[in-house]
């Protein structure tokens, strides 16, 4: 007994926290072997107590307590006269005992001590549930897209080309217009100018010279005169073609017959060589005092714009508008710089010609709307669900903004599930373009239809956005935002400003009609009128409305010459301040 006490005392002394720390060993209260040493068990029983305690996988301090209990029990058994073998046999299954002890010891813990276990268990349960739900969702969503495929039922290009059926060749401007550049190139020049060098200069002169066309340096150059000396038959042919009732072009596309890959080869030709050829000829006609020739050129330019609208794609509309805007501006400039250039009858003819050119009413986007129908039949499945083919389609069209990884096997089913369905996408596409068409077609832009806020917001979400600029969001947020608008966000054009642009060109048309009427009034009365109303009804049917506020176009009868202006998109009248209002025609500078 004394020995045992001495041993206990020695153990306590040798296992103080300080000694444990200095000897870099486990603190005594956490050292099971040290804790049961005082029971002086035979090796096999000590191994049993320590082994069971270790197998419980409890906290160290709990293991020490278990080891002590077991060691105490075994000691009592030995002291009771039982052999170590008998005690070992009585003990039974160590693993089973360790499992039962572990379970009961854990129950013994306080709620606070059990918190980490609850957290781990709860987290594992939650995580497992989330994973399970995601897995089920993935399988369900994936099965909707992996086993479906798009069905192409309508050849939209063929349908567009069917419009040409029944139009005789002599009524078609195409392919006649397509051969013009080659015909110009075949002309033999000796004076140092040709199509490739001169026509771009005409375009440049139009873009850069405010006092166009009379005083442009270009028209004074001999090579321009020489060029048109040779090209006159071709110019006359272009005028004749531009006056034909139909464009008659047969559209071509890539092998997949996708409307998105359709080649609108006439657009660069109209914007480039054809427009420049006619504008250059117009410059020379004014310079050489040939008003009939100028009138023919203006009529041909308006004819080109009309033919360009044979297809109501947005691009076609933009080109037509550009040609019209240049034509109206050219007419106004001629009337400023050469007021006597056109005779009275020619002014009447010019007025009639411009009146027939309905800018706003012609600006429809029907074919642009058809465009998404064609896309939809290539990327949606039979149940209206967006398919993985959509990612491929977008990439193949050259729209490489699809975020990397969103189309991989694991993520694609989720991304496609949050994308708008076929019907929803078509509704948005049609609705958005129809709304812009309505804004263009209304004669009163200031009263243009306004969308409900919710619809406006939805359009803003899906209109083409630059995915790479959403860098501040997390990948998940960016994926989510992108997918919820896909594929509209790749194709729906942001044309909120387009109707305003259409109306500005429409205003230019109206302003040109007013300018012609002013000139007619001035010729009759020898001075400018005080008010535009004086032009009605002899020279104008009505005073055109300013489409940005609904009142008459603004007119200032100044001593230095009249000023015609619109209040512009902001709807505020700033007395013709060119910085704030939209000045349509200012007679003063040229006549000073």
């Amino acid at each position, binding site marked *: 007994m004394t020995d*045992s006490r001495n041993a206990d005392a020695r153990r306590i002394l040798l296992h103080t926290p300080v000694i444990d720390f200095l000897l870099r060993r486990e603190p005594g209260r956490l050292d099971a072997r040290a804790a049961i040493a005082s029971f002086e068990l035979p090796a096999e029983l000590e191994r049993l107590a320590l082994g069971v305690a270790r197998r419980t996988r409890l906290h160290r301090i709990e293991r020490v307590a278990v080891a002590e209990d077991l060691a*105490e029990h075994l000691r009592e058994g030995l002291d009771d006269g039982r052999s170590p073998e008998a005690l070992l046999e009585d003990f039974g299954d160590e693993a089973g005992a360790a499992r039962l002890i572990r379970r009961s010891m854990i129950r013994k813990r306080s709620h606070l001590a059990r918190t980490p276990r609850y957290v781990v268990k709860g987290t594992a349960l939650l995580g497992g549930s989330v994973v399970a739900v995601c897995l089920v969702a993935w399988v369900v969503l994936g099965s909707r897209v992996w086993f479906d495929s798009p069905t192409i039922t309508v050849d939209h290009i063929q349908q567009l080309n069917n419009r040409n059926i029944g139009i005789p060749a002599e009524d078609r401007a195409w392919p006649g217009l397509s051969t013009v550049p080659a015909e110009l190139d075949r002309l033999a020049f000796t004076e140092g100018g040709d199509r490739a060098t001169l026509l771009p200069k005409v375009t440049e002169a139009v873009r850069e010279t405010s006092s166009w066309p009379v005083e442009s340096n270009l028209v004074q150059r001999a090579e321009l005169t020489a060029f048109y000396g040779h090209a006159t038959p071709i110019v006359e042919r272009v005028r004749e073609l531009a006056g034909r009732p139909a464009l008659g072009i047969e559209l071509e596309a890539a092998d997949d017959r996708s409307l998105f890959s359709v080649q609108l080869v006439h657009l660069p030709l109209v914007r480039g060589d054809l427009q420049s050829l006619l504008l250059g000829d117009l410059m020379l006609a004014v310079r050489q005092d040939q008003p009939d020739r100028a009138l023919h050129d203006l009529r041909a330019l308006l004819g080109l714009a009309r033919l360009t609208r044979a297809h109501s794609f947005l691009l076609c509309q933009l080109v037509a508008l550009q040609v019209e805007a240049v034509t109206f501006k050219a007419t106004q400039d001629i009337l400023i710089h050469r007021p006597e250039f056109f005779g009275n009858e020619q002014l009447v003819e010019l007025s009639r010609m411009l009146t027939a050119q309905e800018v706003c009413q012609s600006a429809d986007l029907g074919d642009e709307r058809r465009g998404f129908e064609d896309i939809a039949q290539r990327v949606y499945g039979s149940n209206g669900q967006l398919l993985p083919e959509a990612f491929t389609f977008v990439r193949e069209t050259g729209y490489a903004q699809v975020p990397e990884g969103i189309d991989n096997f694991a993520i694609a089913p989720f991304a496609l599930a949050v994308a708008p369905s076929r019907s929803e996408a078509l509704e948005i596409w049609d609705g958005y373009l129809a709304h812009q068409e309505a804004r263009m077609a209304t004669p009163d832009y200031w009263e243009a239809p306004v969308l409900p806020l919710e619809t406006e917001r939805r359009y803003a979400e899906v209109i083409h956005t630059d995915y790479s600029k959403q860098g501040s969001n997390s990948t998940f947020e960016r994926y989510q935002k992108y997918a919820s608008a896909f594929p509209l966000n790749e194709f729906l054009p942001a044309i909120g400003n387009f109707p305003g642009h259409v109306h500005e060109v429409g205003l230019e048309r109206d302003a040109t009609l007013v300018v012609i009427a002013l000139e007619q009034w001035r010729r009759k009365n020898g001075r400018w009128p005080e008010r535009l109303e004086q032009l009605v009804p002899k020279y104008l049917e009505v005073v055109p409305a300013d489409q940005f506020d609904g009142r008459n176009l603004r007119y200032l009868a100044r001593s230095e010459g009249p000023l015609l202006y619109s209040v512009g998109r902001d709807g505020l009248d700033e007395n013709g301040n060119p910085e704030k209002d939209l000045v349509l025609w200012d007679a003063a500078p040229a006549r000073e």
Partner: protein
Amino acid sequence: MRIERELMRGAGPVAVLKLLETGEMYGYELVDALAKRSEGVLAMGQSTLYPLLYNLESQKLVSSTRREGPNGRTRKYYRLTGRGKTRLTKEAKQWAAVTTAMSALGVLASEPCTQPALG
């Protein structure tokens, strides 16, 4: 005779609580008393007793204290708590009811019970 595990699971805790009713006891003493007083029927090994004691402690039916015993070594003594006494009373009543019911059914008799004659 050793009893089935399931039955032991129900009887063991009550037996231990009953032993502790008379005063505190240490683990080995409990095992010894259970074996002797139940004539081996409720004998349980170390691997059963300590989980059982830990469970009773976790339910606050017993409490333990480690202190030096007469042999000079430390021992862990277990004693019944107030809650343990209440539980023991309740369990004892239930066991009495079960025993009575079993007797009525003839389960505890040496001969099977006979059905009363109908009508």
